[in-house]
């Protein structure tokens, strides 16, 4: 992405609520933004260290529940609850990182799936805390200096700030020796070790940052929909994140955002155009086409067209 294009996109994102008249369109934009944070988060693990977390919804859900419970039952205000959601999700990421210390590839995938399964069961069965399958309604809208961020426009800017922060974290990490260590683990782990890259340290670090970011997404989601139930742990959420990252271009900075926008807007657009069965069919066909023709994702394909193949 050239600098000019970047500024243009930023300007478009900042002025979007002026262009979108309907509340529904703004809702789609907010959801795309929340998924953008989640996709950026998953990409840190999947795209850069090459480890697939198929339980990523767990960190998202932990963030959502933490934030909802602290504001509802603990009567915390939004901002400290958000920080706690990020911290607790990050701690869960640390745990998973440590557990899967020696496990890579398929084993890492299994550990993350199991973890999400366990956490989901807890949310359903610890009824005194979570209200079980009924969920937690009435999560308060955030406030900023006494202003309620209840309106969709205000919330849009909150989510935009969340994306900007997540993107900045990813960009700074990736362009540093830490990001190079992440990529080295993906590209050739024994060689990375031979030049002094501490595998465990960097895998755990990537897992913590990734999980914390998913926790941020979870908190943003909880205070937007104002309702949290065990559905936040659904495997579908994880799959959606993976599709966004892979289609957009894993291991690129812009890819997850492109994927998040595309795969939030597209299902909504299809919903208006066709019945449910046709929607799913069209969605499936598009996915197959993408994997077939742009196996590395949209952003790398565009970069290749512009002749900047090597990162």
């Amino acid at each position: 992405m050239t600098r000019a294009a970047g500024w243009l996109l930023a300007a478009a994102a900042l002025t979007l609520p002026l262009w979108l008249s309907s509340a529904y369109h703004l809702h789609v934009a907010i959801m795309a933004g929340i998924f953008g944070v989640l996709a950026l988060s998953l990409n840190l693990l999947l795209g850069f260290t090459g480890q697939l977390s198929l339980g990523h919804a767990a960190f998202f859900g932990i963030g959502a529940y933490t934030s909802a419970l602290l504001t509802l039952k603990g009567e915390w205000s939004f901002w400290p609850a958000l920080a706690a959601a990020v911290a607790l999700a990050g701690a869960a990421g640390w745990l998973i990182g440590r557990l899967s210390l020696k496990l890579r590839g398929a084993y890492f995938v299994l550990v993350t799936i199991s973890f999400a399964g366990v956490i989901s069961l807890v949310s359903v069965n610890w009824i005194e805390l979570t209200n079980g399958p009924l969920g937690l309604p009435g999560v308060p809208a955030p406030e900023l200096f006494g202003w309620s961020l209840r309106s969709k426009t205000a919330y849009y800017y909150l989510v935009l700030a969340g994306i900007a922060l997540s993107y900045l974290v990813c960009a700074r990490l990736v362009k540093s020796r830490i990001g190079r260590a992440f990529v080295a683990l993906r590209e050739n782990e024994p060689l990375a070790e031979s030049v002094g890259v501490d595998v465990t340290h960097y895998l755990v670090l990537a897992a913590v940052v990734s999980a914390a970011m998913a926790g941020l997404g979870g908190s943003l989601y909880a205070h937007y929909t104002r309702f949290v139930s065990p559905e936040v742990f659904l495997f579908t959420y994880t799959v959606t994140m993976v599709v966004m990252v892979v289609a957009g271009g894993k291991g690129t900075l812009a890819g997850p955002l492109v994927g998040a926008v595309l795969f939030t807007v597209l299902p909504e657009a299809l919903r208006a155009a066709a019945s449910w069965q046709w929607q799913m069919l069209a969605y499936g066909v598009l996915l197959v086409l993408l994997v077939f023709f742009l196996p590395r994702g949209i952003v790398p394909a565009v970069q290749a067209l512009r002749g900047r193949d090597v990162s």
Partner: protein
Amino acid sequence: MTLAVRDLAVRFGGVAALEAVTFDVRPGSITSVIGPNGAGKTTAFNAITGYLRPAGGRITYEGVPLTGLRPSAIARRGIVRTFQRTSVFPALSVEANVLTGLHLRGTARFLEVLAGRRRLAAEESGLVTDAAAILEFVGLAHRRREKASSLPYGEQRLVELAIALAARPRVLLLEEPRAGMTGAEKTIVSGLIRKIREQGVTVLLVEHDMRMVMGISDTVIALNGGRVIAEGAPAAIQAHPDVIRAYLGAPRDPA
């Protein structure tokens, strides 16, 4: 200042890959490990660099034990290796490969990176300069921007050498650095190894090419069947009856 291997034993299941292997690598020397296939050369390398946990024995560097340390911790102590099969970071540019090798020279910590501390930009540009100098040294400066996996085989091996050099080795373990190279490339590599030694780096070499081994080494260690069968100057090793027997087989008994 020596790398010392004492009574090293490595077993795979019931098979003894190395048994009672003892040798020293003198600082500043080029020492070669030779032996027929299956003699245990690669196993010895893997044990020294922490990729294998020995069943017994001690490996020390400057008196400090290395046994039981992880490969990254051993690299941190200045003992850096290359691999028998070409081993680069394939999807990255040649420059990014070397920058990754410079990992230990960077000091940026997590929170500093997130905060975008200004000193990091200076450090990064310093690393880029270092990488350029290393690529110049191995003769790959013109390939800087190319993807490592797109390079011809011989040049990929040079990238590998550049990565290892970036890790600032004090002892450099090279595993068949000339395997699969063209004649011209082989000459370049031999020259580079000599230059590396002149800079004070100790070189431990596994190599099948006897002409190179005999021409470049100060000391040669011959392994066979997991044991050291001879150790000494190249000429002595070349004439050593056990070494000749290991390579050519035992002379037939007179009938």
